[in-house]
């Protein structure tokens, strides 16, 4: 998985890794993501199972935080209702940059089973906050959570840190 594997290929006696600083920073960032501990509905129970003995979510370097100000990413685990939507937006805005969002389950992806008749359900959390990774399922299996987390790490690893605006061609 990237950086440390290059130590196997010793350069002038070993112990030296050649690469960009950006890679090092992204490597560190992607392996120590703290998340906002926030359960909404059914998916939160699967997320509890994910945190427990069999699946051990913390091996990804994630630590649950109860304050959005200390969190790197937020997991929207469950149905987002209209009443809850304002609060989720506030929580997202309170998080410090860089921040990521994982949308878990059909409900927060698209409204799910409540898409057609649910008069009080937001049809997808991406209508109020930008989503990085969608995990499908109702509720997703813990293996799907792992896949989603790996996808987020992949995304962080590819991210630009320096000269962002220039590289993206904004200026």
């Amino acid at each position, binding site marked *: 998985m990237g950086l440390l594997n290059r130590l196997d290929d010793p350069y002038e006696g070993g112990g030296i890794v050649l690469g960009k600083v950006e890679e090092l920073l992204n490597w560190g960032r992607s392996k120590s993501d703290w998340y906002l501990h926030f359960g909404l509905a*059914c998916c939160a129970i*699967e997320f509890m199972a994910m945190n*427990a*003995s*069999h699946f051990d979510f913390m091996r990804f370097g994630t630590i649950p935080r109860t304050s959005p100000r200390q969190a790197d990413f937020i997991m929207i685990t*469950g149905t987002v209702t209209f009443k809850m939507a304002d609060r989720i937006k506030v929580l997202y805005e309170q998080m410090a940059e860089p921040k990521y969002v994982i949308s878990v389950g059909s409900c927060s992806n698209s409204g799910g089973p409540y898409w057609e*008749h649910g008069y*009080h359900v937001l049809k997808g959390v991406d209508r109020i906050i930008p989503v990085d990774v969608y995990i499908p399922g109702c*509720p997703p299996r813990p293996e799907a959570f792992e896949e989603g987390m790996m996808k987020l790490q992949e995304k962080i690893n590819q991210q630009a840190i320096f000269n962002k605006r220039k590289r993206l061609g904004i200026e």
Partner: protein
Amino acid sequence: MSEKKRLDLEYSQLDSDRMRINVGPQHPSTHGVLRLEVEVDGEIVTEVVPHLGYLHRSFEKHCESMTYQQIIPYIDRMDYISAMNSEWPYVMALEKMLDIKVPEKVEYLRVIVAELNRIANHQIAVATFGLDAGAFTPFLFYFRDREFIIWILEKLSGARLLYNYFRVGGMAADIYNGFREDCLSVIEKVRKTNAEVMDLLIYNRIFIQRTANVGILTPDVAINYACSGPVLRGSGVAYDLRRNEPYSIYDRFDFDIPVGKGEVGVVGDCWNRNMVRMHEMEQSCRIIEQALEQMPMEGDVKANVPRRIKVPKSEVYMRAENPKGEVGFYVVGNGTDKPERLKARGASFVNLSVIPEISKGYMFADLILILGSIDIVLGEVDR
């Protein structure tokens, strides 16, 4: 509302220390998206006002545009920790309306899956209650064991959490080879872990000091608020629908109704409510053992029911004992394949209403424990 505002004014004039604070909807200990408006005098709680509706998923209105079979998955999403148990009263209600007799094997299979799910629910309840008190190890123990129960239910129904396994007049699928052995090995594991948790958590001195004599719910208050389930039985009232109004085949089994006895603390406090859940797991194990012995292994798991169910103009209320209390469904049919009206009685909703009554006068940290001991699920509260 006007009275409350005047109270606020008086406090400010007196220059007292009373303060109104919000707990939730984003809070690690509210077991979902419950919001509590708490008035505190220093550390002492003087008033609690629960605010609901953060998970209102329009269940009842939704059902009016669904056919009868399509409603079953939505019932799963009501009380998502004990989905099997919630499906049962609804299916029973329809069977009563249509006058369907289900096969013997189905009745036993229903008892077994419901009791397995009851164990899984109580495991989560005790685990999160311990988590609220600051004990992390029982959480890991119980989730390790719960996974084995979930594997059985997954092999039966294909889903891990929301099963959609019950059908009108039967079950979705038959049992698999080795079902009996799996159940017996799970019971063994549950008993072993329960004995461990008894030492580790329940009779732990710190845990007793935190939970005994806290949040005392007297029997008359519990009955006045229509509490049910372990909350009522923790107050010493031996009321269980499986015994008092036996539905299905519960009259064939030999099991006890555990009640709070007050061996530690007072009858009706948090410790006793929690203890009832521990004993109920053991009783569920006993029921499963008896059911496995009596269950006919041959035969079909579906009664002869038409694919398209049309319910005549009638109404029925069916209730059953869920892990959290009494859950009932009031179904009004209008001659088509969709219900005219479907009202659900959620046990968590009723049990939650007792919170303002029993949390006055305790410390703020105890409020979290009282909430944890009631074991609510917000999907069922808000529906």
